[in-house]
């Protein structure tokens, strides 16, 4: 076939299948928006926990990037260090850890998140469980004491082990679980802005909500999962509060404490591990909400968001079997537009 056109130029044309236009969104741009949306919450964690928070963020991100690099190099799974997915996992892992998590534990978490939960399953896009949450739950089960040591907000310097005990307190959900509701010093407003103990990403509901709205506006995530997740938690805890008594905590308290905002906007909406269909996402969100409320109200752990999301991750392939009915294959309708 000649490469010379009638105009005498020797130019080869690219020949490929349609469509010849593509939306600008790419995997890296999706990841960039998630990072950007996390920044307000990262800033709040730095404000309340200072150097300890910075230390956790840096080690988690560096650890995840390093493990990602090693996995891509040796396992040859799909993905690229530049696609930003390991950066997102690193930040989310940090958000799921207490500010005083020892450095080596963060590194173990990085290996669990990137190697065990992601690359063993086949790399980017193939993992069944959310990598950051898998790591969090692994660490929680392996080292329960360190994973439930909560620095008081406002302690901004580095903390050494000797003085740690004097600077910690229980989380609001922890107090609730022990029936010490009256000892929760934080007001509703404190809970909302993040003036409470907890993991780095469990403190400020407001900052997470802001980031979540950015993701919604940019259509990186859709509304179904956050709305049904938060709605179900409010509905169930509200019903129990009304009929079961105030010792169960108000629905507002449940909405703004713990990892619910982080979970609903950043973890449950993880594309890879959540359903692909509209109806599937509704079911997924309701399931997450129900499990979270049940664990918080009647389970053995004060917080249930991570377990709820991981359990729903496990049934996502099942939910995705419910594909929509194609155009023209439904029950014939006699309806006609006026």
């Amino acid at each position: 076939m000649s490469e010379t056109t009638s105009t005498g130029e020797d130019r080869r044309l690219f020949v490929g299948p349609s469509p010849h236009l593509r939306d600008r969104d790419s995997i890296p741009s999706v990841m960039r928006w998630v990072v950007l949306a996390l920044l307000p919450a990262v800033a709040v964690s730095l404000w309340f926990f200072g150097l300890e928070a910075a230390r956790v963020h840096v080690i988690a991100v560096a650890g995840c990037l390093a493990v990602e690099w090693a996995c891509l190099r040796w396992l040859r799974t799909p993905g690229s260090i530049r696609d930003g997915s390991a950066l997102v996992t690193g930040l989310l892992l940090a958000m799921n850890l207490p500010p005083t998590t020892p450095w080596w534990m963060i590194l173990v978490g990085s290996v669990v998140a990137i190697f065990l939960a992601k690359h063993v399953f086949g790399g980017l896009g193939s993992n069944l469980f959310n990598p950051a949450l898998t790591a969090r739950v692994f660490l929680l089960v392996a080292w329960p004491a360190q994973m439930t040591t909560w620095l008081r907000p406002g302690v901004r310097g580095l903390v050494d082990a000797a003085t740690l005990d004097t600077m910690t307190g229980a989380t609001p959900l922890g107090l609730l679980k022990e029936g010490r509701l009256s000892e929760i010093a934080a007001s509703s407003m404190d809970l909302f802005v993040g003036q409470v103990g907890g993991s780095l990403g469990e403190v400020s509901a407001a900052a997470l909500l802001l980031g979540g709205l950015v993701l919604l506006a940019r259509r990186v995530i859709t509304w179904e999962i956050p709305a049904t997740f938060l709605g179900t938690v409010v509905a169930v805890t509200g019903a129990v509060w009304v009929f079961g008594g105030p010792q169960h905590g108000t629905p507002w308290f449940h909405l703004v404490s713990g990892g619910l905002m982080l979970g609903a906007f950043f973890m449950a909406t993880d594309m890879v591990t959540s359903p692909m269909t509209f109806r599937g996402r509704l079911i997924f969100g309701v399931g997450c909400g129900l499990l979270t409320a049940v664990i918080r109200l009647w389970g053995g752990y004060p917080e249930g968001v991570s377990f709820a999301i991981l359990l729903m991750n496990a049934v996502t392939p099942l939910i995705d079997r419910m594909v929509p009915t194609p155009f023209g294959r439904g029950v014939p309708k006699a309806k006609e537009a006026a």
Partner: protein
Amino acid sequence: MARRTFRGGVHPEEHKDRTAGRSVETMPLPGRVVLPLRQHLGAPAKAVVKVGQRVAEGEVVAEAGGYVSAPIHAPIAGEVTAIARHRHPGGFTTDAVVIEAREAPPADAPEGASWPPEPVRMPPLDPDRASPEDLRNRVRDAGIVGLGGATFPTHVKLAPPPEKPVDTLVINGAECEPYLTCDHRVMLEETDLVVDGIRILRRILGVDRVLVGIEDNKPDAIDRLSAAFAGDPAVSVQACRVKYPQGAEKQLIRALTGRVVPAPPGLPMDVGVVVQNVATAAAVSRAVRQGIPLIERVVTVSGPSIAEPKNLRVRIGTPLADLVASCGGLTSPPGRVVMGGPMMGVAQVDLEVPVVKGSSGFLFLPAPSEEELWPGPCLRCGRCVDICPLGLAPAIIAWHLEAGDLDGAERLHVRDCMECGSCAWVCPADRYLVQWFRIAKARLHERNNQHR
């Protein structure tokens, strides 16, 4: 007025502004035309001329090869210089008749013969007096096919079987593909022909309801046609939301009538509808009133690499290189040349291909970026499932195909796919979803033929 629409779809950048405001320019007659015998869906046409034969403009050079087929007429006067294989802009090679213009009459012509000869025209018909049968035969004899790009022979669509009564004629002026503005210009500049053609089509079908669907990024065309049909209660011009693929037959029918065309092999006539494109309507009017066969069409030539993007009235068979020259040449080497719109068009190997009846546009686009070229892993984001206008689950079907599971893909109705490209457009990993489905459909077709 409520804007009509359908479920799903995407919003690619329109890129229509460079040509939407430019009047159609008539290109000078080409010195050479290449007429592939497959310019329509169905059986290829059969050549009825011989090499060395002189033909007049409008003369039949190839007759219909069957019922679902269409004749081809000489777009210029000249000498048939070859009947040979030639590359077709649809991405394949097929037999073609080549006609070259001649300065003087042939040596054996009688003394005083003039050249070029008078164009051949069919006798004009009065659409109000001629029978629907005669009008339909005229559409057939004029070689008219769907000019929106699908190129289905128009007379076949105008003869619905008696068990499928048609009560509505839908006229497609959506032009939802980015860049293309040829239908827009035809609606503005040939309003009378479009209006007349619609009335003729309506008469042939014997329907008393006509719905004209136009995307509301063309308010001038909506106004023009609404005004033209102001006194006609049977015809209603409707504004449709700007959304791709609004101009896909089933989506347009859904938007305008609320009716859902059954899945393949279901056809619009199963819900009592026939769809025709606005440019096809204009061609019908020309064929009936003036006896002119389909020998030219309006083509949008656009894209970042073309010096002066234009809407050109071009004779069928004109080589693409001539169109480029008429548009001031190329400002930069194009990476990719596409016939049709960017969403469903076909990439070209070179500029030697001719304009065919289905050429709505030729676009000179940049080559894909590295990122677009190499698909990433599926993120399971579900965007393709959300936007598929046919309600399919593209990513899930593609997983089956990647795993070699053709049956799984068939169970998920891969054959319903119309290859509109919305899924691949929206995919953040730039996966070649449509290509997977094309291959699967071809393989399923092959397999079913073997079983027979």
